[in-house]
């Protein structure tokens, strides 16, 4: 393809990527390096239905002038990234200096909001992703060996968790695991413990969120693997049978190699999806025990009456960095495979 034709061919995509990916990321980075102007406060008398009290207020005139001069606010460099709400260099350094034991240091770090969110996010990602791959493959193998009549309905039912909106799905489960709900009451009966509550224990909340994560993502892996299984050549499978291979050996030596590239694809998508876990935390009201990076961003913007744009932007940039780091090994592997095939 001549270079000129190629340029015109790629131009619409390049333009769209520039407008919808590059520009927003740059704007987030710029936002994350700015904080609000220093507020000019004045003491005023506030009156209402319950009497008058002297209180401080923001001086509108002075602030308007400041904002007109510098609409973005004050430049803060990487200050927001290193403060306590994010990477917390000072606090981590202090914990390192004052704590004698590893466990003391780790619990001091875990007490910081960013690291607390990061530890749940990473645990969720690395527990849910392999389980989704595993269950997805086994369900696909199971469905594939069903008689033709049952295939359609089974596939439909298996896809349901993915069809349900994540927030709605998690809310339904949240009510089911309530002490008065079907699952919650059943668990209390089984363990004969009236105070057993999945929502009260931090440990059980983590388990509950991960079970939900596996439940809602497995259909995606199943569908992709199932599509892949349809392309496994019958000849090779028959040849394997003639060679005396059992069911497991056929799966191990014929099916696995065929679906391996799909596993890489699912891993990529799942790593990205699970790293930005958010809906189940809101749906399960799990903020007390589990927070994720996405939830931290949401909380900065929607947690109170005042929005912390700089803080939210900094966490967003850190999340982008996190996704990039997570995906690097998978991408390097794919690139190697690609090069090997070309040669």
């Amino acid at each position, binding site marked *: 393809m001549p270079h000129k034709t190629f340029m015109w061919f790629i131009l619409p995509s390049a333009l769209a990527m520039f407008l919808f990916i590059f520009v927003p990321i740059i704007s987030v980075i710029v936002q994350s390096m700015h*904080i*609000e*102007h*220093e*507020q000019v*406060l*004045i*003491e*005023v*008398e*506030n*009156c*209402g*239905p*319950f*009497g008058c*009290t002297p*209180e*401080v*207020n*923001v001086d*509108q005139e002075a*602030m*308007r002038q400041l904002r007109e001069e510098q609409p973005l*606010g*004050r430049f803060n460099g990487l200050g*927001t990234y290193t*403060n*306590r*709400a994010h990477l917390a260099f000072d*606090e981590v350094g202090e914990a390192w200096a004052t704590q004698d034991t590893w466990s003391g240091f780790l619990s001091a770090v875990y*007490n910081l*909001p960013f690291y607390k969110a990061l530890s749940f996010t990473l645990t969720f990602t690395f527990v849910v992703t392999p389980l989704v791959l595993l269950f997805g493959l086994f369900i696909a193998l199971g469905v594939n060996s069903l008689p033709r009549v049952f295939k359609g309905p089974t596939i439909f039912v298996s896809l349901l968790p993915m069809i349900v909106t994540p927030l709605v799905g998690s809310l339904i489960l949240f009510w089911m695991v*309530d*002490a008065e709900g079907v699952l919650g009451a059943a668990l209390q009966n089984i363990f004969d413990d*009236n*105070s057993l*509550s999945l*929502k*009260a224990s*931090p440990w059980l909340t983590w388990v509950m969120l991960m079970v939900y994560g596996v439940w809602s993502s497995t259909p995606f892996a199943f569908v992709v693997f199932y599509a892949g299984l349809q392309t496994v050549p019958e000849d090779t499978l028959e040849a394997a049978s003639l060679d005396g291979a059992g069911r497991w050996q056929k799966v191990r030596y014929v099916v696995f190699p065929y679906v391996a590239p799909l596993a890489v694809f699912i891993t990529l998508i799942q790593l990205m999806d699970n790293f930005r876990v958010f809906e189940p935390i809101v749906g399960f*009201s799990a*903020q*007390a*025990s589990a927070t994720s990076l996405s939830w931290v961003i949401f*909380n900065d*913007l*929607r*947690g*109170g*009456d*005042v*929005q*912390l744009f*700089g*803080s939210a932007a900094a966490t967003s940039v850190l999340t982008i960095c996190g996704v990039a780091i997570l995906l690097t090994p998978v991408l390097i592997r794919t690139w190697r495979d690609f090069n090997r095939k070309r040669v």
Partner: protein
Amino acid sequence: MTKMTKLMGATAVALTMGAAAYADGHGCGAEGRASILSNDFAAVNAVSAGAAECEGADVTTNATTEHRDIQVAALTANPAEYTVAVVANSSIVALLNEGLIRPLDDLIAAHAPDIPMNQRISVGGEVVAIAFMANAQHLFYRSDVLEAAGVDVPTTYEEVLAAAEEIRSQGLMENPFITNTAVGWNLGEEFINMYLGHGGDFFEAGSANPAINNETGVATLEMMKALAEYSDPDFLTFASNETAAEWEAGNAALGFMWGSRGGPILDDEGSTEEVTSTTVLAGAPTVAGGDTPASTLWWDGFTVASNISDEDAEASFIAMVHGMRDEVVSANNDAAVWLSPAYKPGPAAAGVAATAASGTKPYPMIPFMGLMHTALGNELAEFMQGEESAEQALADVEAAYIAAATEQGFIE
């Protein structure tokens, strides 16, 4: 008769003597746009519906529980997307900080000179909002359960604990106490209530520096923990909807809940005769021998946007005043504790009236209070779960607040 109803009586007399343009349902002659952004509950919706009846004005409403999150962006636009924002004493601060609402003094003088002084919310001598209802968290109790347990109606939190222990030990209820302690806004609000009840100050005088990591703060947290011992183990997920439902299901006998939930709980829907006939609303308890009840007073009122034409501002103001007229208040008497003179307090208002009459402090209208509230809501969960000490929790709150307040320019 409580102080509040006395006040209302006095203003009623003043009102009947003056020209009653404010109270009069007719003569709502306004021309222009009135677009209302408000929370979504019965009393606010009644006012909006009343405003929509104003002839001449082009009234549209958006009633949503997400109103706090869109109000700043919506009113920053020029012209503003909404001409009226219905706010409470916490959510008005975000609008005040950005200068997004206009002083109402001229409009009051021209169109509604009779609005009682206690409904005018003023900041630095300028009226910035007109309040139409009051709200507060206060005690709900089940008279039959207290009677069976043989305890008097508690007036202090120490008595609440004793009564809860009595109810539990006699096997009447396992978890008799209930309040809104969901992590986030609700948990922060409970700390603020209890801390004010202990007589604490949130900030160093005259500055934005936090001052909660002290003995008062520790005592506050210990009381909250003690109460949580008598609450359902899921208490960190309980917000107003959950607590009201638990109460209506008859699962609690001592509650600290919002006055605005009183009407819906006492009505004949969603509960049994046994619960509704024995539920009594009383004033908020005091704590640790203090005189101030451990609660905060709230108002809901309307503000008019800055970034709109004067005609639209005038139309919006006239329509909203029309929406608060006596007929609207009378027709929705039990939906809220109205500040209007036309209001006749019923049993659903008894708790708020008693709480207001006993000297409860209003929720502080301070520019950086919202940041403190958010920090409290996020950082106290681990203490409530028993995973960290009260001192550590308070230190975390202060550190989280300082990070946010520095970013917002309140602290250097």
